């Protein structure tokens, strides 16, 4: 047990000054730097989301013209995907808690870890430059030949930004794989690892294998633009659909880079707040790896009407169905974990339940979209927009928020205001459904996505959706207040406020510079509530 003198020293006051942060090799401090960065990007991306919804409140132009709208839509997508959701969980919460979960002092390569943060910053800077100075309006998908023929070099710069940020992702992935293999505490086999680690590990493999494809695509785009070599532009003898294959070969696994670690967090939250052993540990662990493996072979389900062959469509549709099975297994396991538990409705648990609610809807609509004949109608309509927001926001963002509240006492040694956190959840959860559920109906009725203007028949539901976006904004503002208020005025947190069993709760809050006062030794599974 640690003495009082030990406890006054922690990673936050171990060194002082901005320089000590910018040059830190401590995974916890790097995690906090990611937290600040990602929250800032989320704020910018969120403002664009609100502007988009405001523009769509009525038919016709409200605040911008069509080109302005197309830029806003590009900003929102690119920022949220590349700068918020992809680094959100692995680089921020993963960085902070992977070593703590494993009982390690740090990640395997602390310097590489710091470098990955700088990659994100440099990549983000390039992307922001391309977005604001070059006025890119290609959508975050950069489909050719529009992205080659229609815009300045902005699209190339934006892909370059994504490429540099991709290195951040690759380096983090490498670090996590090495850490998981080499730095587990004595007594911790693979099946004694918390499920968040399994989620991060599967994600890391995806990051390492899929992200380089984005780099290759960039190289081809740049060669086409600067040297006139025809890869994608039909005027030069290229094939525009080839680009979609390359793009989704990265971007579909990227979807699982976003959701797998979120699923890991949910496993932690459900067990901790049900105070019960997880149901089907191995099923959840292996389904993470299974989803990661199959996710490489489903990219063509974005392309059923793109002109790819029917045979390809059939294979991709079938493989997509296979991804559905492990996803369904996880969901059932989480609900089963609550059976005969002792469930406490603290805000992290509310977010976990919110995740299950929204992710289930996102999941079943995902199956609908995987059915070819139905996808023909829904493809590129608001149905798809609603579906991926239910999965990405309803899934990943809910998990991030739940994770932040769950680990807030550990990260900062202080408690947040529980009532305000629950109020924030209420606004976000209700607002989210008000915003995005009507979009399923709009899509079924045939409203295409990426539309600056729409037919008058679509107006009422668009108005409902816009009002919902204001509720979400209020919810996140309250959430920001909860975090700042907790940092400034929060009561001192005990070492283990939730009574959870994973290793990070065995050290002091906040943890010391080297994580543990003495090397923990593992004798059982991570969720031994008995």
């Amino acid at each position: 047990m640690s003495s009082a003198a030990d406890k006054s020293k922690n990673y936050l006051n171990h060194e002082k000054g901005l320089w000590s942060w910018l040059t830190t090799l401590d995974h916890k401090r790097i995690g906090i730097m990611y937290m600040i960065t990602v929250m800032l990007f989320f704020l910018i991306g969120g403002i664009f989301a609100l502007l988009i919804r405001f523009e769509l409140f009525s038919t016709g132009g409200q605040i911008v013209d069509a080109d302005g709208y197309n830029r806003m839509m590009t900003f929102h997508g690119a920022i949220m995907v590349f700068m918020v959701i992809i680094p959100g969980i692995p680089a921020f919460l993963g960085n902070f808690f992977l070593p703590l979960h494993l009982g390690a002092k740090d990640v395997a390569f602390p310097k590489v870890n710091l470098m990955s943060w700088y990659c994100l910053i440099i990549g983000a800077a390039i992307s922001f430059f391309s977005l604001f100075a070059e006025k890119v309006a290609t959508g975050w998908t950069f489909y050719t030949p529009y992205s080659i023929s229609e815009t300045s070099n902005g699209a190339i710069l934006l892909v370059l930004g994504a490429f540099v940020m991709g290195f951040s992702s690759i380096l983090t992935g490498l670090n996590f794989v090495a850490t998981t293999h080499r730095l587990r505490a004595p007594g911790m086999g693979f099946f004694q690892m918390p499920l968040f680690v399994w989620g991060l590990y599967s994600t890391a493999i995806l990051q390492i294998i899929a992200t380089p494809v984005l780099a290759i695509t960039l190289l081809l785009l740049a060669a086409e633009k600067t040297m006139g070599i025809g890869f994608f532009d039909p005027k030069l003898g290229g094939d525009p659909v080839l680009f979609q294959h390359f793009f989704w070969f990265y971007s579909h696994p990227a979807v699982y880079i976003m959701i797998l670690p979120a699923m890991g967090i949910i496993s932690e939250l459900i067990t901790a707040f049900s105070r019960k052993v997880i149901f089907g540990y191995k099923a959840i662990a292996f389904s993470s790896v299974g989803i990661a493996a199959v996710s490489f072979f489903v990219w063509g389900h974005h392309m059923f009407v793109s002109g790819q062959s029917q045979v390809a469509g059939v294979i991709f549709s079938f493989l997509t169905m296979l991804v559905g099975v492990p996803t369904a297994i996880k969901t059932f396991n989480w609900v089963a974990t609550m059976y005969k538990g002792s469930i406490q409705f603290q805000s992290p648990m509310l977010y976990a339940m919110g995740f299950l609610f929204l992710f289930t809807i996102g999941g079943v609509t995902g199956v609908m979209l995987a059915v070819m004949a139905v996808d023909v109608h829904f493809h590129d309509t608001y149905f798809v927009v609603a579906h991926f927001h239910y999965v990405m926001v309803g899934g990943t963002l809910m998990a991030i928020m739940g994770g932040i509240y769950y680990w807030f006492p550990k990260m900062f040694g202080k408690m947040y205001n529980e009532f305000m956190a629950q109020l924030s959840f209420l606004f976000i959860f209700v607002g989210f459904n008000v915003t995005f559920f009507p979009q399923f109906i709009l899509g079924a009725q045939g409203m295409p996505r990426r539309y600056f203007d729409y037919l008058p028949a679509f107006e009422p539901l668009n108005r409902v959706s816009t009002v919902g976006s204001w509720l979400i904004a209020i919810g996140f503002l309250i959430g920001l207040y909860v975090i700042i208020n907790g940092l400034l005025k929060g009561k001192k947190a005990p070492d283990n406020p939730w009574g959870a069993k994973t290793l990070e709760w065995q050290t002091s809050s906040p943890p010391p510079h080297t994580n543990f006062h003495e090397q923990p030794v593992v004798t059982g599974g991570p969720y031994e509530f008995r």
Partner: protein
Amino acid sequence: MFWVNKAHAGNTFMPPQASNFAESVDTLYGFLYYSSLISCILVIGGLVYFAFKYKRKTASDKTAYIPHNALLEFLWSFIPFVIFLVVFAWGWKIFYDMRSAPKDALEIHVVGQKWNWDFVYKSGRKTSSEFTIPINTPIKLIMGSRDVLHSFFVPSFRVKQDVIPGRYTSLWFTATKEGNFNVFCTEYCGTGHSTMLAKVKVVSKAAYESWLENNPYKGLTLSEVGQKVYAGRCIACHNVTNVKKIGPGFAGLWGSERKLTDGSTVVADEAYIRESILNPNAKKSVGYEEAVMTSFQGQVSEEELTGVIEYLKTLK
């Protein structure tokens, strides 16, 4: 029940059923919808039920230790797997039909460009932004693009296909209901993406025959011809007022002095208008440096060109 869309009355989630594919797609959608609803009720209902039933009572509650249950886990893996296989095969069957056009289908060529749709019939008849087809006749659209990707989507027919520069794609359907139906572009294509609309007019076979024989401009004055051409092809980018849309508004354009980007000026006369339609980038006006308009060379007849010029003269 809103998915059994027989009456198309008012508030249905899906648009009216107006093609041979609509009913089968909607039936499959209905199956998916109800199985999804049941799954959601089971999962979310279970979640809410457990949450309240097993709410924490004391700080030292003992919980059950249930690490796994092989039978349960097998069942909830296997049952979804079977359902997934069923909907996969069902969706494939309909998709296969969608991709197998009958050999005797009436073929119409479709060309997408920023930002309108052109339609060319075998007789040489061309239309823009709307096209007319006979009811209960298989129609095959052979589609290409002049510039970037577009996608041809008719919600009421439940068909959609990307249109790709440099190659042909096609889709087919049989319209089963008379009336006008919306065509949307569903692949992002820039400024005018959301105004790249068209109408498909489904008429009786007799009405189609007489439409095909009639000259659309018969009995019209030149400026009326121009007005028709405008409504089909210019309206996506030009207003009839003097307000800029994507290109300049047309009112007051005729005879005005245009400032060009090279510093010179030119009067908007017949020759200038003609050149602006056939070779839009030859003279770039100040304020329109990006020159997004594509050439209409070969796509408008002499009669239509003269008509547009005469129509512009009437817009003061």
